[in-house]
C-alpha cells in the first residue's frame, strides 16, 4: 500500500509487515520504519537515508533539493521514487522504495554527477539511518561478522560468493529486520559503482554506521550505488538465515547433489590422505603398497571411508615427466592402481587419485588434460578425483567424465570458489591452515548440508589436533586423517584416535539429524563466549545442539532456548549433565569444551 500525502509532503509504503514513511518537505528524510507484527519503531529518531561527503563537506539527503516524486500504488510493484539534486556539486540522486516478493521492500539509491571539467571527484557515502537503527537492546548480525569470537573476529567461516544478510534483531522477542544486499562485484570490488560490497564487508557495527564509503560517480547517468532488500523477521537470526538460505538456493541448480551415482560420497566422511612414500601404506620390504595395513590402522579412527593416494608431490619435477607418467611409474603402475581401488572397495573404502593443476606443460591443453584424466579413471576404476589447490572444475570435464565413467566424485582441496562451482563440485575440504579455528561455524556446512567437506589442517599438532576434532564435532562434519605431511610424521595421539572413533560413531548413529537439510549455525545462546549450532532431522523428530565454551571460565546456568516440544534429552559427547528447565537448556560447559545435546521431542 502506498499513501502519498501531498499536503504533508510525505509518502508511506507498507505491506503488512513493515511500514516506511518518507518526508520530502525538506530534502528527503526517513521519518519512520515500523515493524508491524511487534509494533516496534525500528528508527529511534527520524533519520537521513544517506549522507554524501565531497572534499570534506557533508551533504545529507535532507539538504538535497527534491526535484521529482513518483508514486505508483496501483501496479505491481509499488514504487515510491524521489529525485534529488545536490546543487553544490551537481550530484543527482534517485531514492526508490520498491515492493517485492515475500513481503519485502527494496531501497535503491542511484547517483550520478556532472563534475567540473568532467573530472570525477572522490565522493563518500554512509547510510545515515543505520545510526539509531533498532530499538534499545537490539543487536546487529553483520554479513562479514554475524557473531564475533571473543577476539572480535567472525565466528563464521564465510564465503565470498554467498553474502549473509545484515540483520538487526531485538533479542527477547526476536523481531527484527534482515537486510539482504547482493554483491555484484564478488572478487573485484574496487571499480564497481555499486557499493553494496562496502556494507557487506563491515566487521563491526561502528564501522557499518560511521564509515564513509568511497563511491565512484564517473558520469551523469544514474548508477546503482546501494540496493538493500528489507525483510521483517519474527523469529530472529534463525528465520533470517533460513529465509536467506532458501532464496540463495532457489537461484541455483543443485541437481548434481541428487544424482544417484554420486550419492555414495555423502556419507564418505572420514578421508585418509595417504602419502605414498610412507610406511603407512608402502611396504619397503616388497616394494609395494599395502592397502590392508593402511586400512587396518584406520580401525583405531573408526575406519577410513576413503583414501587419497598421493604420490606426485614432492617428487614431480625431479625430471621432465608429467603427472600422467607417474601413474605408470609407481609400484605396479596403472594395473596396480586398479587392483588397489577394487581391493579398497571390497573393504567398503573409496579411492581418490589426485590431479595437480600446477603440473601443466607447454604442450598440454584443457582438452588433453581432460582426456588424460578420463583415461586414467577409465583404466583404474577409481571412485573420485581430488583436485589439488583447486576451487573450480571445468564443466567439460564433468560432462566427459560422466560419459566415460559415471559415478566419479569431484572433490577440491579448497571450498568451491563460486556459485557455479558449488553446483558442479559435490565435495571439498574444510581446510584451515591457521590455528584459530574455534569457535567457528563453516557457512557452507549450513548453506549446503549436502556438500560433504571434512575438516583438515595438516600442520596442526598436539592441542591443534584436539581443536580440529572439536571443530568437526561442533559442526557435525567428518575429518581428513592426514598424519604424514610429505614426509613429516605427525600422528594423532591414542586419545585423539579414540575421540575420532567415538565421534564417527555419534555422527553415524545420528545421521538423520546431521544430514538434515536445515541446520542453523550460531544458534543464539544466553552467554557471551558460548556458541551453539542446531542440527535437526528432516522429519523434525530429532535435534542436536552442539555447544562450545570459548572462554576460560566454566559457563553454568541457562544456556539456550530449546524448541517448544524439546522437553528432555541427553548429552552425547562428554556425558555431561544437561537438563531441560522451562524450555531452556541448563547445565555447565567446561572451558574450551564441546558438548552435544540431543533433544527428545514430546508430542
Amino acid at each position, binding site marked *: 500500500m502506498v499513501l502519498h500525502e501531498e499536503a504533508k509532503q510525505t509518502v508511506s509504503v507498507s505491506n503488512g509487515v513493515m511500514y516506511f514513511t518518507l518526508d520530502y518537505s525538506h530534502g528527503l528524510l526517513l521519518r519512520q520504519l515500523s515493524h508491524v507484527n511487534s509494533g516496534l519503531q525500528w528508527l529511534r529518531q527520524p533519520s537521513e537515508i544517506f549522507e554524501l561527503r565531497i572534499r570534506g563537506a557533508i551533504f545529507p539527503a535532507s539538504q538535497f533539493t527534491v526535484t521529482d516524486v513518483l508514486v505508483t500504488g496501483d501496479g505491481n510493484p509499488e514504487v515510491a521514487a524521489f529525485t534529488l539534486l545536490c546543487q553544490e556539486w551537481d550530484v543527482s540522486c534517485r531514492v526508490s522504495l520498491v515492493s517485492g516478493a515475500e513481503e519485502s521492500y527494496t531501497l535503491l539509491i542511484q547517483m550520478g554527477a556532472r563534475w567540473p571539467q568532467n573530472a570525477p571527484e572522490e565522493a563518500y557515502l554512509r547510510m545515515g539511518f543505520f545510526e539509531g537503527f533498532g530499538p534499545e537492546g537490539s543487536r546487529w548480525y553483520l554479513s562479514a561478522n554475524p557473531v564475533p569470537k571473543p577476539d572480535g573476529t567472525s565466528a563464521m567461516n564465510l564465503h565470498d560468493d554467498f553474502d549473509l544478510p545484515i540483520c538487526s534483531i531485538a533479542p527477547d522477542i526476536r523481531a527484527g529486520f534482515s537486510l539482504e544486499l547482493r554483491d555484484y562485484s564478488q572478487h573485484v570490488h574496487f571499480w564497481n559503482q555499486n557499493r553494496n560490497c562496502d556494507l557487506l564487508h563491515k566487521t563491526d557495527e561502528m564501522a557499518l554506521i560511521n564509515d564513509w564509503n568511497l563511491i565512484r560517480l564517473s558520469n551523469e547517468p544514474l548508477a546503482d550505488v546501494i540496493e538493500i532488500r528489507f525483510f521483517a523477521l519474527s523469529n530472529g537470526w534463525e528465520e533470517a538465515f533460513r529465509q536467506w538460505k532458501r532464496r540463495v538456493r532457489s537461484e541455483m541448480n543443485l541437481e548434481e547433489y541428487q544424482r544417484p551415482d554420486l550419492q555414495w560420497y555423502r556419507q564418505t566422511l572420514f578421508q585418509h590422505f595417504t602419502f605414498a612414500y610412507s610406511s603407512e601404506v608402502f611396504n619397503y620390504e616388497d616394494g609395494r603398497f599395502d592397502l590392508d595395513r593402511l586400512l587396518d590402522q584406520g580401525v583405531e579412527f573408526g575406519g577410513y571411508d576413503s583414501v587419497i593416494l598421493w604420490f606426485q608431490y*614432492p*617428487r614431480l619435477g625431479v625430471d621432465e615427466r608429467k603427472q600422467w607418467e607417474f601413474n605408470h611409474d*609407481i*609400484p605396479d603402475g596403472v594395473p596396480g592402481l586398479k587392483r588397489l581401488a577394487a581391493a579398497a572397495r571390497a573393504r567398503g573404502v573409496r579411492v581418490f587419485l589426485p590431479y595437480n593443476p600446477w603440473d601443466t*606443460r607447454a604442450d598440454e591443453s584443457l582438452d588433453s588434460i581432460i582426456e588424460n584424466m578420463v583415461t586414467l579413471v577409465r583404466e583404474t576404476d577409481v571412485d573420485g578425483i581430488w583436485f589439488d589447490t583447486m576451487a573450480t572444475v571445468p564443466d567439460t570435464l564433468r560432462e566427459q567424465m560422466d560419459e566415460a565413467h559415471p559415478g566419479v566424485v569431484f572433490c577440491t582441496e579448497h571450498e568451491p570458489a563460486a556459485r557455479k562451482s558449488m553446483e558442479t563440485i559435490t565435495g571439498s575440504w574444510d581446510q584451515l591452515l591457521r590455528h584459530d579455528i574455534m569457535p567457528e561455524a563453516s557457512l557452507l556446512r549450513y548453506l549446503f548440508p549436502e556438500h560433504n567437506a571434512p575438516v583438515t589442517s595438516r600442520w596442526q599438532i598436539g592441542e591443534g589436533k584436539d581443536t580440529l576434532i572439536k571443530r568437526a564435532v561442533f559442526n557435525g562434519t567428518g575429518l581428513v586423517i592426514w598424519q604424514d605431511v610429505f614426509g613429516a*610424521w605427525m600422528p594423532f595421539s591414542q586419545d585423539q584416535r579414540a575421540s575420532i572413533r567415538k565421534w564417527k560413531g555419534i555422527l553415524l548413529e545420528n545421521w538423520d539429524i546431521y544430514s538434515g537439510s536445515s541446520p542453523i549455525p550460531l544458534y543464539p545462546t544466553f552467554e557471551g563466549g558460548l556458541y551453539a549450532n542446531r542440527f535437526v532431522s528432516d522429519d523434525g523428530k530429532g535435534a542436536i545442539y552442539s555447544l562450545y565454551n570459548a572462554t576460560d571460565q566454566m559457563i553454568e546456568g541457562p544456556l539456550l532456548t530449546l524448541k517448544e516440544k524439546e522437553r528432555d534429552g541427553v548429552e552425547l559427547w562428554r556425558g555431561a549433565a544437561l537438563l531441560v528447565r522451562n524450555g531452556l537448556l541448563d547445565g555447565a560447559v567446561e572451558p574450551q569444551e564441546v558438548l552435544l545435546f540431543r533433544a527428545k521431542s514430546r508430542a
Partner: protein
Amino acid sequence: MEGDCQYDHGPREMTVGPIHIDTFPVTNRQFKEFITESGYSPGCDHNFLRHWTGDAPSEDIADHPVVWVSQRDAKAYAAWASGRLPYDYEWQFAAAGPEGRLYPWGDVFSKDRCNWRGPRLTPVHQYRCGQSAFGVTDMCGNAREWVEDELDDGMHRFTFLRGGSYYQGPHFWHTDGGPRPNTHHLKFNLLSEGHNRCGTTSFRCVREA
C-alpha cells in the same frame, strides 16, 4: 618444498677419507661396460636405462652422465668398480674443498661453469672450468648424484641427491631443480625401484685410499 628435510644438519665434526673420488660422474658408456662385464640385471627393470636405444646408449649420449638408474643400480656399479658411493658429507667435501666453497669453483654462481638449464644433459667433461678445488668435475647442475646414505626414520626411507640438475620444473610446487650450491641436498623419499629411477639422477664412485 612444503615442510623440510626433517634431518639433523649439524653442525657436527666429520672426518673424510682418505678416499679417492671419481673426477667425473659415471657415463652411459661406462655403465654399458659394467652391464656387459657383470651381466647386471636389476630385480625390477621398470624405467631402467629407459633413455637407451635397445641395450646400449646412442653414441651422442655415451659421455653423458648415466641416468635412469636407481640408488641400488648405482651401488651395484660401484661395487663392481671396487668402490662405493660417496656419503653425503664426503660428496660435500669433495665439492666444497677445504675452503668450504659455496660452489665447486668458488663462492659466486657462474652459469658458464655448469650445465645450469639444459635443455638436456651434457657430457661429463664439458665444464672442466667448473671443477672443485680437488679437480672433481660436473658437481653442479647437469645431473644430480646419488649418495651412499639410506636413512630410515621409522616411517620413511630416504636419501639425498646432490648438486642439482639442469632441469627445473616450471612451477614452484615442482621439485627444487636447477644447479644447487654445495651446501644443498635434496631429500629424496624412496619408493619402488622403478619410481626411484629418474632422468636427472646419476652418480660417481669413491674408493678408500
